[in-house]
């Protein structure tokens, strides 16, 4: 049943995606250029949960209790995890400045290694390298509910004042958020799994919905280039919406070709 080996150097069925990708990179380049030219020229609407993040860390400092940062149970193939790493480093920096205790239990071992590095760096940048406690970023278990068991145990015993959930979450979302709610912690969540959002919305004080999570990681940096990427995404969204409306109108008039252009394999 030997299938003949594929010797094509390009898959023509994916041309539309290549065009889409190049178009998106162009959007990025234009917006980065715009941001460089006038750093204050880009408007990005504020995200409610982010202001709360600062206050929540402040509250933990006042109460003398730890901040618990949970980077989700996604591995590196999930972009939510990448956003979680960026956000964790901003949170670590703020925690280092204020001088409270930080704990980051991790699910994925590679993510653990990455966050360990970014957290050390964040403490160094805040000139508090001495305050970094080795072991505050730790691997628990890459088994969903073993991770949950351990993290909820930490919540019940160490009583963190602030729980921050950022990243890719699955069934454990409700378990963690309900336990955190029971301990009376301030809870801020952000997750890109639509099916888990309702549970965070019900049990947390603030929830970043879907792509607000990625926007947050750009927003926290407040670097113009980072914000430029959000603007580029907005352009792409507008384009997608426009094309959908146009295609539906066209096909109602008997021209379904636009829809066919978007079919992928």
């Amino acid at each position, binding site marked *: *049943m030997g*299938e003949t080996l594929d010797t094509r150097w390009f898959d023509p069925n994916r041309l539309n995606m290549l065009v889409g990708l190049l178009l998106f990179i162009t959007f990025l380049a234009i917006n980065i250029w715009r941001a460089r030219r006038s750093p204050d020229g880009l408007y990005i609407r504020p995200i409610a949960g982010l202001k709360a993040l600062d206050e929540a860390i402040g509250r933990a400092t006042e109460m003398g209790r730890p901040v618990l940062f949970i980077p989700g149970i996604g591995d590196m193939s999930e972009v939510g995890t990448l956003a979680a790493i960026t956000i964790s480093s901003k949170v670590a920096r703020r925690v280092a400045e204020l001088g409270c205790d930080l704990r980051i239990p991790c699910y994925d071992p590679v993510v653990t290694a990455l966050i360990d590095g970014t957290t050390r760096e964040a403490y160094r940048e805040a000139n508090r390298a001495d305050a970094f406690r080795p072991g505050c970023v730790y691997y628990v278990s890459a088994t*969903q*509910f073993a991770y949950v068991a351990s993290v909820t145990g930490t919540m019940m015993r160490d009583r963190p004042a602030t729980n921050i959930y950022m990243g890719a979450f699955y069934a454990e979302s409700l378990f963690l958020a309900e336990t955190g709610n*029971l301990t009376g912690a301030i809870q801020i969540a952000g997750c890109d799994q639509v*099916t888990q959002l309702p549970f965070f*919305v*019900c049990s947390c004080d603030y*929830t970043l*919905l879907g792509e607000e999570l990625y926007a947050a990681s750009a927003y926290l940096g407040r670097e113009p280039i980072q914000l430029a990427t959000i603007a580029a995404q907005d352009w792409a969204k507008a384009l997608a919406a426009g094309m959908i409306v146009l295609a539906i109108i066209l096909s109602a008039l008997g021209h379904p070709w636009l829809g066919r252009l978007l079919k992928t394999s």
Partner: protein
Amino acid sequence: MAAEPNGFWRRVLAIDRRWIFVLIGVGTALPLLFPVNLPVTPSPRVQAAYNAIEAVPEGSLVLMSLDYEPDIMAELQPMSIAVLRHCFRRHLKPIILTLYPAGPRLVEMALAIASEAEGKRNYDDYVFLGYKSGNQAVVLGLGENIKGLFPRDFYGAATDTISLMKRANSFADFPLLINLSGSTIADYYIRIGASRYHRPMILGATAVMATDYYPYLSSGQILGLIGGMKGAAEYERLMGIVGDGRRGMDAQSLVHLIVVILVLLGNAALFATGGLKRRVGGGA
């Protein structure tokens, strides 16, 4: 009540969550002990899955991939048992495999129950190939050479010596694929087995996953869809048997009812204590 206005409703609002836990626990256990067997009406999607198996000619091979682990077996195991029994009843010959390392024990349990109920025997009526690691790569391999992928079955017999396996070389030899899956493995079977090799396929999934697969149903890539314990109960109903799916349905109904009553009670309490007038920020 007059002395302490809204006293009852205030207590309702401030109820310890452990009382809710007790209610849920009792609400689950009681119907299991004292079943009333509420009626179960099969949905069109489950009926379609049932019909797909009915349509396979007697004596045909069917490929069954049972891909889940113990943590979600509650939703998929009753389904596996019901579908296996259906295949056996129709004198089909299932070739079974799993893509999860902890899967074989569950498959063995399901096979033990189904084969005993329908009086079927290993090697004469079915073959269990066991577990193979590699997810997508395995599904791709099934389209090429099954015996190469599984040189031995789960019990160590060489697959080229098993008479049922003589006919089983690749997807092409199966008039029906059955995938009962708790994960994205379902996508691989749909993309590769159903789409690339154009095999008729039915899918069983967890209740949460099931909605994500409706589009494949309307596009015809899968013929039927069984979702969660409820789907298993509907399947059992079609088969005229009582399994863990149907046994669970009373508890399922009662717990849902309890949750709904709790929510209504909470809102009544909020209304009675005037809490609704306070403007509170949105959840999001």
